[in-house]
């Protein structure tokens, strides 16, 4: 029944996505076709019923307040705090005390700000490590083949052209018993990342390469998470994290090999 309205047209009709010409043609057909009219009516009713049924979960009352509080903390951590000018002093001693107080207050403010920034950076790094480990676990559990399967760095690296907004180098010479298995395109920390899949003996290694940003830079050199060892390094343009359950020394051997070839990468 090629004359009947297609599924796409019926859905677009219910969604208000038809152009004026399409709408006129659809209306003309509907005026003559009971079957399509019935389907169009059902689609429209289904849409409105789904809209109501879909509004199912209300946020808990404290979530709004918590997010507002988080927003304030973010602002506080990002604002540059200016040092206060002391009130006018009448004597040299007064000026000296004021200057000393100013220095002390400034020092405390700088210390507090650094401490807060450190805390923020530390929590971001911890989140990054957790996310990398989760993805590594998911890769192990998924058992799906890599999107690009190759042991050849000249195949794996070009595969990322046009898929990620940066480039990187892969080492030719790998430590003993270490082998490139392939790679996936993934997202880490809400950024596109190259996921390089290596094996060291029978241990699998996930190496995430992502563009270095101000907000999401890697602050860890190595960490343990959920029994996995995470080793990381940063260049001026890249953050690289490697996750595996292999001996940390052997993991470092691979990471060092990758780090050594990152000079001269085109960005």
């Amino acid at each position, binding site marked *: 029944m090629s004359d009947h309205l297609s*599924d796409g047209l019926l859905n*677009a009709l219910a969604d208000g996505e038809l152009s004026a010409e399409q709408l006129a043609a659809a209306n003309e057909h509907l005026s003559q076709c009971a079957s399509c009219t019935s389907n169009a009516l059902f689609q429209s009713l289904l849409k409105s019923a789904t809209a109501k049924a879909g509004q199912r979960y209300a*946020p808990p009352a404290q*979530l709004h307040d918590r*997010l507002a509080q988080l927003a304030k903390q*973010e602002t506080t951590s990002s604002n540059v705090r200016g040092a206060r000018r002391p009130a006018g002093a009448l004597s040299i001693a007064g000026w000296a005390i004021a200057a000393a107080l100013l220095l002390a207050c400034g020092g405390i403010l700088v210390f507090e700000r650094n401490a807060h920034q450190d805390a923020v950076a530390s929590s971001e790094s911890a989140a990054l490590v957790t996310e990398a480990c989760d993805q590594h676990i*998911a890769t192990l559990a998924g058992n799906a083949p890599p999107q690009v399967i190759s042991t050849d760095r000249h195949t794996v690296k070009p595969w990322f052209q046009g898929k990620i*907004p940066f480039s990187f180098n892969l080492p030719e010479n790998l430590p003993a018993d270490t082998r490139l298995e392939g790679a996936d395109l993934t997202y880490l920390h809400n950024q596109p990342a190259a996921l390089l899949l290596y094996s060291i003996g029978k241990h699998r290694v996930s190496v995430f390469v992502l563009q270095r*940003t101000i907000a999401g830079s890697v602050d860890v050199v190595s960490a343990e998470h959920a029994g996995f060892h995470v080793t990381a390094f940063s260049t001026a343009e890249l953050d690289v994290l490697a996750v595996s359950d292999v001996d940390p020394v052997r993991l470092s051997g691979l990471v060092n090999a990758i780090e050594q070839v990152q000079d001269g990468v085109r960005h």
Partner: protein
Amino acid sequence: MTLLPWKRAIRSSGPQTSAFEDLAMPLLPSLYNVAFWLSRNATDAEDLVQETFLKALRGFSSFEPGSNFKAWIFRILRNTFLTSRSGLAAQRTVALEDELSGGEDGPAHYPEAAIDRQTPEMNLMLLSDRAALQTAMETLTPPLLEVILLADVEELKYREIAAVLDVPIGTVMSRIARARAALRAALQSPTGPSKPTGTSREVRA
């Protein structure tokens, strides 16, 4: 293919909290609702919304005034979900799902039993059963559920949904057709919609 929208986040110059909160806070119920549907539990939904909120706040300088903030923050929510534990599991369901249905861009067909076997009155009765419809929605795979939530509940336009999901508009239309066909079939099944058994996820694991 748009590759570089995230690059704008790099030149972040600090959160503009008030303007951000004015835009984001009214969307909190919508964000939480979709987050709960996707993650299927309250704890994950709260975490997902909170992470989305922080990412959006930190990247707010990359938001272009005048563009659609709702689509922008839903895109962040969706990307955050995809990198979460439950989201990664959901991603692995997509390939086989498309394989079984003949690909995303293939035509969507209503199951034979779903067409013209019910009277309009019966259809109205089916659609008035909110619980049955919610159960039917629970049976949808994540790619179909998210598109139906964005189209019907959030009332986003196809082009906005395409931006949120980072897929062509044709794929959005195809998924909407498949989702509605699945809902229709589930509602009109003689036994009614059945709760998801987890089979679809286990098959892919």
